């Protein structure tokens, strides 16, 4: 609301004293950054999804373009060729805990992490979790039906297939994680033996 009011105020001001706003935004952004390690200026070029999602949360509109974009993302999901969705949950736990990868100061020869704990609660014994995303503790209770496996994989691969303009990275579509890493994270979420799916005990489970 405040943002909208401010926009209206700005439009009035702009009418009085003409100033360019978005026209040269891309060139201003480009001129304000420099290549740094593996993080090059190419990363600043937006794809259609990023362009569509670059607005305030409360200004998103669920229109035909949004629906088309969601369907396109869904169609683009790449499932495991061997049809096997589940890897090793302990390796998956390591992927979830690792926040490294793709930053300018990261070594590109070292595997990227998923940094899942930045935003999600996972294993109930891990207290250092974020709240930007919902808790995934005991995710495995959902079972391992084909539908659940495909749904979970799709969320990890490209969450926008279901939730357009979500804040969650596209771990598969943007090649942040490898297919094997994704399978390991799937196991971390769905394997009944995974630490994610152990009973919550004591105060650490409260949230």
């Amino acid at each position, binding site marked *: 609301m405040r943002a909208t009011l401010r926009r209206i105020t700005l439009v009035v001001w702009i009418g009085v004293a003409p100033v360019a*706003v978005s026209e040269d935004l891309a060139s201003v952004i480009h001129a304000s950054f420099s290549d740094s390690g593996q993080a090059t200026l190419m990363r600043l070029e937006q794809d259609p999804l990023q362009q569509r999602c670059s607005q305030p949360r409360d200004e998103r509109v669920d229109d035909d373009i949004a629906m088309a974009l969601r369907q396109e993302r869904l169609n683009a999901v790449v499932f495991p060729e061997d049809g096997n969705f589940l890897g090793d949950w302990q390796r998956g736990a390591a992927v979830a805990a690792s926040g490294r990868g793709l930053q300018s100061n990261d070594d590109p020869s070292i595997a990227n992490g998923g940094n899942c704990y930045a935003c999600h609660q996972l294993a109930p014994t891990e207290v250092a979790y974020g709240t930007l995303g919902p808790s995934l503790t005991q995710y495995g209770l959902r079972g391992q039906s084909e539908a659940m496996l495909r749904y979970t994989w799709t969320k990890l691969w490209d969450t926008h297939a279901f939730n357009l303009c979500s804040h969650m990275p596209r771990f598969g579509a943007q090649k942040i994680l490898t297919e094997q890493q994704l399978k390991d994270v799937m196991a971390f979420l769905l394997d009944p033996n995974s630490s994610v799916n152990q009973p919550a005990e004591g105060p650490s489970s409260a949230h």
Partner: protein
Amino acid sequence: MRRQSDDAMTLYRFVMMIPRWWLLLMVVPALADEGIFDQYRDLMGDDNPAIFVIEEGEEFWVQSQGPSAATLEACDLGLGTGVTRGAYAQFPRYFADTDRVMDIETRLLYCMETLQGRDREVIAAKPYSLRGDFGTELEALVTWLAAESEGMIIAPEQAHPKERAMYAMGEEIFFYRAGPHDFSCATCHEQSNKRIRLQQLPNLTEHTEVAEAYGSWPAYRMSQGLVRTMGWRLQDCFRQQRWPGLIFGSEVSIALQTYMAVNAAGGVMTAPGLKR
């Protein structure tokens, strides 16, 4: 140099060094870092290691430097030549002599160049200290100038069309998603009551929260052992967003500071702050 998981580990190790706080953590494990750091702040009392950096900044202001062998005392920070009291609170602002909107850091660089004859490229090449360094001149000056505005109302100028354009651009950049993780500033800072790991995130679109956040920078960062400026904080955000390197004194840096300062307008400067 530091990653998100390193931040969490540093915090964890710090907390574990203090036995009674570890007990606290076991009793209320979901306690976000704010509670623990409130206790640390109480222990510190009114003081903050930044008090010494303030002194250094004041020394740099009156120190004769550069080919012109001049001090910075003739620098105009928007309130007239040499007026430092209250100046920081009104940044970023338009300056007629450069015909552009400047933040405190770019303005200081301008004064170093024009008053002292120093090479801006040399200073801009390393404006911020690396971990373990002793703090740069720029960091010290910004800390002192922030202290000169302590307790004052945040009131960035928005009378000039370029100032308003800078705000509008800052808002667009704030929501601009890019990079392999599709991160914008908004990814982390457009909602209230959220945290990354145990670090609470201020909602920079909401007045009270952005006023508290913006007004407490520059700040002594315990994990860095140094006072860090808002310009440094933006640079580090972009690194964590998987974006390329933010250029010191760039339009994006000034635009985002303008966006935050205007959203914070009416709040109170509490800097230099004390942060994890």
